């Protein structure tokens, strides 16, 4: 039940989670997002908080409100999200990871790129 941590406000954590799903194509671009009530029910979060999360996604340019029809995933959202996630990895997470690899004395040839079956 309680799977929200203290890194960020709950609405932000939900927005991040929904963004990850968008990245995986769920829902696909141009399709409707689940309703606020459906999301509230699924995640056991107050609908007002869910609305804030949707607003955050909208601010990130990932979704848009179509009047009278609901909230839809913007075309190009996935692309945009992929781009910003890549940026964040390359500029923030990768340098930290690279330092750690150096500390451990690992180099590219020590890392397996194909996932084990």
């Amino acid at each position, binding site marked *: *039940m*309680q799977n*929200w941590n*203290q*890194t*960020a*406000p*709950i*609405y932000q954590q939900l927005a991040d989670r929904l963004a990850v799903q968008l990245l995986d194509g769920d829902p696909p671009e141009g399709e409707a997002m689940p309703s606020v*009530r459906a999301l*509230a*029910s699924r*995640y*056991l*979060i*107050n*609908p*007002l*908080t869910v609305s*804030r999360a949707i607003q955050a996604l909208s601010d990130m340019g990932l979704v848009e409100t179509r009047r009278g029809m609901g909230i839809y995933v913007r075309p190009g959202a996935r692309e945009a999200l992929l781009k910003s996630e890549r940026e964040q990895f390359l500029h923030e997470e990768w340098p930290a990871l690279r330092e750690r690899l150096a500390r451990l004395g690992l180099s590219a040839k020590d890392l397996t790129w194909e996932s084990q079956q």
Partner: protein
Amino acid sequence: MNNDNNNLIEASGFTLRYGRKTAVDNLTFHVPKGRVVGLLGHNGAGKTSLMKAMVGLHGGTGSLKVLGLDPMAQRAELLESMSYIPDVAVLPRWARVHELITLMSGLQPKFSAERARKLLKRTSVTENDKVKSLSKGMVTQLHLALIAAIDSKLMILDEPTLGLDVMSRKSFYEMLIDEWCDGERSVIISTHQVEEIESLLSDVMMLDEGKLVLNLSLEEMDSRFVALAHDPAAADAVADAHPLLRYRQQGRPAALFDGAPPAHLDGLGQRFRPSLVDLFMALTRKPEMQRQQA
């Protein structure tokens, strides 16, 4: 009922006394429609007294209007649009479930027997059970199902999940979200399970010794309170900034601030979101200084 505005509850300077003891002291607040308000406080802080006042069981001085009505003077009328669960599971032990359904149908105009039966199907309680043969948890589930079958604008619940196991609590939270969060109704819920319920709330009211020490929406809370996890070395610097509370978060020292911490501290630690529990501890514990001076 003349309730033109959006507020289901309005209190102004409301004080409630039991003899010489002040249970609730000069409260001013309002609860709009479409909210889930968590009412937090230690035992004896005044939660139950406030709830009793809201349902017309006790009167006080000052102004308190629920659904536009005076709870004490217009209690019968108020109860037709509001439902509440008092502290303990208090269903009559001699009754069978179907008898309770019949009685509630005859007394509470907004009660739907059909809905009650539908909600009961989700529990292990059958219509022929006698209340006295049910376990405490099942009685609570039954009471919740009966109350949930009332189509009321305002629900006031005093520790509704006491004695329920995790699955039943989850079931109750699901029902709360699915059935009651339609933007028109409001729920006031007091509970000790603060962590579980945090994500369900839209607003928080904290009582400490009868006084309202916090009355915020969760949105405002997110932006107002900041917690900082730091190294032990930074402890003195942090203390000098007079945080609301100093505690340990996952093994590391942490401090909770009302408003942003001074800029120089930011480099000494990481910001994180204080949980409702931490905030509760911060705002309702007595500062050490006061105790020494007393």
